[in-house]
């Protein structure tokens, strides 16, 4: 069985198993936390395409997530666009922004890409927060064009709150699960297909890749464009899930939390980011009671992985396989 088919099977089996969770564990807290896990897992699975598979140290992923969330909220708030339409539109806006970021990074290498993309994210944040002129004046008070520090709320939802009443969160769980399943299928198709080869070739040796016919310009834009769609969609769904989109989506803490997920799980692998997301969210959950020690605990986990398992959880499995092959 080829690696691609195996991944496909694992993906569908996992999705099937996760579909049973709300039936088995009915607690609202578990279900909504799992929904949040789906959202973060979508982001890291796509970020991994740029950061791990293509080896481009872009830190713009949370900004693209924010663009998806803001575009959804603004389409709903200003134009009353139904969320089912606004969400994919917002994802396309994220793709467009990501292509611009990719173009800007074209001639940069390594840490300079990280610096530029972080700067772009900060500029977007400042544009949102520093704009205090009232664009509209609803009864709730002055509303800047990008929502200002307060952000947007009441821009619409997927309709499950009206349909299912207090059980709406279960429907959102399934939307999140569906989104993650699609994002994983998308990521498997890319990593195991010709595009994955092109991205990895450019990561390993750009000059050699070019002289074997892999155009750097073209495929760098492909990876930026492709990885943004589900990231934007996840941002859109985040907005719908919480009913509020504010500047907090740009927070550096979240960016570092997600970056740690990729590192802990294994950069550049298909399943690593997902494993990392699961592990870190469980760890975060486990340390909920210990206050400030929570951040320190997460830091310790990250350090342990970087030192002892630099290739992450997925690297552990790879090492097992290669040992088995040698013997």
């Amino acid at each position, binding site marked *: 069985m080829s690696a691609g088919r195996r991944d496909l099977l694992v993906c569908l089996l996992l999705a099937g198993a996760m579909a049973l969770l709300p039936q088995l564990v009915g607690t609202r807290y578990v279900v909504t936390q799992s929904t949040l896990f789906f959202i973060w897992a979508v982001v890291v699975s796509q970020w991994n395409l740029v950061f791990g598979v293509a080896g481009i140290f872009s830190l713009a992923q949370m900004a693209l997530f924010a663009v998806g969330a803001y575009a959804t909220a603004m389409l709903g708030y200003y134009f009353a666009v139904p969320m089912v339409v606004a969400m994919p539109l917002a994802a396309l806006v994220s793709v467009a922004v990501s292509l611009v970021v990719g173009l800007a990074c074209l001639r940069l290498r390594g840490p300079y890409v990280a610096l530029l993309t972080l700067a772009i994210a900060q500029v977007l944040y400042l544009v949102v927060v520093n704009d205090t002129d009232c664009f509209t004046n609803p009864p709730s008070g002055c509303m800047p064009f990008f929502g200002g520090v307060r952000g947007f709320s009441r821009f619409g939802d997927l309709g499950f709150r009206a349909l299912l009443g207090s059980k709406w969160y279960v429907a959102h769980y399934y939307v999140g699960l569906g989104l993650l399943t699609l994002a994983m299928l998308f990521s498997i*198709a890319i990593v195991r*297909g*010709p*595009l994955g*080869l*092109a991205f*990895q*070739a450019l*990561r*390993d*040796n750009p*000059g*050699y*890749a*070019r*002289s*074997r*016919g*892999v*155009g750097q310009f073209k*495929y760098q834009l*492909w990876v930026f464009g492709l990885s943004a769609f589900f990231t934007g969609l996840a941002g859109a769904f985040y907005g719908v899930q919480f009913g509020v989109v504010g500047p907090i989506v740009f927070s550096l803490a979240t960016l570092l939390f997600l970056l740690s997920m990729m590192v802990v799980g294994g950069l*550049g692998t298909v399943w690593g980011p997902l494993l990392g997301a699961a592990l870190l969210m469980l760890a975060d959950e486990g340390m909920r009671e210990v206050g400030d020690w929570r951040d320190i605990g997460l830091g310790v986990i990250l350090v342990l992985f970087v030192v002892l398992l630099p290739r992450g959880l997925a690297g552990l499995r790879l090492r097992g396989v290669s040992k088995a*092959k040698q013997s």
Partner: protein
Amino acid sequence: MAEPAAAPLLECREVTKRFGALAAVDGLSFRLLPGEILGIGGPNGAGKTTLFEVVSGLNPATSGSVLFEGADITRASPEAICHAGIARTFQLNAAFDSLTVRDNVRVAAYFGRDRRWWPGLRLGGATEAAADEALETVGLVGKDRSIAGALPVLDRKLLMLAGALATRPKLLLMDEPVGGLSPGEIDLMQAAVRRVAAAGVAVVLIEHVMRFLVQLSTRVLIMHHGESIYEGPPEGLVEDRTVVDVYLGEGASRRLAATLEEQARA
């Protein structure tokens, strides 16, 4: 019946590559006919690798022009030159280190043969067949699943050759294909290059191992300070005073003369 003069496959006209005040390649002109194996020698810093950088588009010429099958490729991108039919190997044994041997060759077979407007979802049978063929020509069958970064030197060089062949080139540029190899391994590489040339691919090779260079080449070009100081049959090398003085030295040229004599007798 008189054969018409064959059109050159590759032609360099007054090619110059400057790095600041230094002309690494200085007004070099030569032609390569289909089916030829041209050996390029010369002291370190003579501009041999820079010439390859210029022809393969990674570091375009400052002035002059490079023509491939009559088309000007002086300013073409490396990927466009690859698609036109020129493949190159590297002195520093380049590879996609984290990929398997097979994936290394697949990249070349899928992206190197033609320009692709849209990336597909599958590699397809033609790519796999081209990869198989290339791995077989260089003798790397059975090592498909090894990780390229862990290969020994000879295998890395063969893998680079396989990658070049998988792009279906008309012209192969080889930069020191046997540098650092043992005599037995050199023979192996020599056989591989002969197989490639026999399949109708023109070859330009840069090499310091003179035995390898003279035994394979149909014609030799010696460079010094970016210029050509000798162009002609390999047999003429040892009789050329300039070549002996600036490159070979007396001892090496005597050994080379012996090799050439041996080759002529065989």
